């Protein structure tokens, strides 16, 4: 198992947002975490990447490393890259520099070859190589954020609501990209608000509600499950 989380309780300060979350991701999988606003999805990713949150109990193991004891900087060295909410790009630096810095945590001898591969994957970024990240469109920024994370050559890529604020066509491209990553051997843990589209592309999914895993199963099963809709919009199952 690449990532295994067991009975995780975590949150901010005095607040526990996650209340006993268990979840796993195997190599080569796309796993989605769905749920309404405030369900704890982003908190889950932050806790895996070890920033901002405080863990009360439970365990997170990644590729043989205990992440509970790890720092943010070391998580990326272990091979887990996180594209956070808001992308967190180096807006004042060029596209090229953003990508190069993505490789900060690893041996950089092959960085030029890796960069070439990245520009082939993202032709739009190649065209704007020397522009500042700030000047990119929302879709380009999202691609750059993912590209920067990929420069670390991660075994697992965590994406926090990558489709937020993007036009439908761009969202389609984004999901195609995610599918291609898995073909290249990178597993993906995807947090999304957009349930229907995500379930079309993921292998498995978890649905969170109020800091707990309310439902889990294969994407196909969950897409048919009326309880998903009820969790998002309240009311009874048959509504």
């Amino acid at each position, binding site marked *: 198992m690449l990532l295994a989380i067991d009975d995780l309780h975590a949150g901010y300060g005095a607040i526990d947002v996650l209340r006993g979350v268990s979840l796993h991701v195997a190599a080569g999988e796309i796993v989605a975490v769905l749920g309404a606003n405030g369900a704890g999805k982003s908190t889950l990713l932050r806790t895996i*990447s070890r*920033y901002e949150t405080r863990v009360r109990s439970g365990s997170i193991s990644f590729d043989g490393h205990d992440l509970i004891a790890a720092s*943010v*900087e*070391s998580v*990326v*060295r272990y091979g887990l*890259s*996180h594209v*956070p909410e808001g*992308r*967190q*790009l*180096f*807006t*004042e*630096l060029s596209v090229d*520099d953003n990508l*190069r*810095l*993505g*490789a*900060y*945590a*690893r041996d*950089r001898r092959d960085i030029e070859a890796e960069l070439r591969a990245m520009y082939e994957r993202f032709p739009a970024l190649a065209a704007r190589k020397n522009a500042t990240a700030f000047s990119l469109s929302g879709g380009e920024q999202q691609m750059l954020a993912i590209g*920067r*994370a990929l*420069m*670390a050559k991660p075994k697992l890529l965590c994406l926090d609501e990558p489709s937020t604020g993007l036009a439908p066509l761009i969202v389609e491209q984004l999901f195609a990209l995610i599918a291609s990553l898995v073909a290249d051997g990178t597993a993906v843990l995807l947090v999304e608000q957009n349930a229907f589209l995500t379930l079309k592309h993921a292998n498995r999914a978890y649905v969170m509600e109020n800091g707990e895993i309310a439902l889990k199963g294969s994407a196909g099963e969950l897409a048919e499950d009326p309880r998903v809709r009820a969790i998002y919009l309240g009311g009874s199952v048959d509504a």
Partner: protein
Amino acid sequence: MLQLLVAGVTVGSGYALVALGIHIILRATRIVNFAQGEFVIVGGLFALSIVQLFHVNAWVALAGATILGFGLGLIYERVILRPAARFGEISLTIATIGTIFILLYGHALVPGWGSLPQPLPAFTGEASDALNLGGLSIPYQSIWVFVLLLAALAAMYLFFEKTYYGKAIRAAANNPLGARLVGIDITGARAISVGIAIALAAFGGTIIGPITLVGGAGGVAISIKGFVGAIVGGLESPVGCVVGGLLVGTIEKLLQGQFSYGVADPLIYSLLLIGLLVRPQGLFGSRAAVRD
């Protein structure tokens, strides 16, 4: 008039380096270092001691003072700024003021430094040697000051714009969370930034030392004028800081030529208040960084 301009650009070079140092520390740590001017004084004294102890020329002293400045900056960050940062902005301001006390009064206690300003040997010839251009007298040291300012700026540009680690430090200042997520040690980046800023202060103190003397109690005034330069040019813009510093030096000399010394300084401080109120982002800045 032109003579005043020469003098203005010379002291302005010192302010430019102070302003740039304040900018670098602010960008990396969100701290305004009120003690920056004291480090200029101490840096000049480092050079003086190196000259006196090892009987070397001013160039070696410049290199030595800059390196010592870098080390002092690392200590300053680790011992004072980092611990105080946990208690918020007001505590930091007070801690930098405490640092002013330590450096201002402490340097007078060091054997060989004392409380009175002392001359530093010129970089070439005597401090009084000057180039005569049809009535306009340009001290050779002033030329060196300006050339060395440009050299320091070029070095800063190359480091921050062209090297991988320089970019990583900028990335850490630009977006600390993003930097941590790619594995950059932002604590280290902050320490190095402060080290560089203090090295710049020591560098500045050494190059203008032959003209303004080194040591003495002028550090607070240097800090404020450097800060005025940074505000006028734009605290968030390195180019703005340098231009602002040169501008403040020039304005100071022009005002001193017109009025008495006593009038010039309050007018420059008024410039700070007006600048803060009217255009807080400065001439070269684009973002309002003053409120919150």
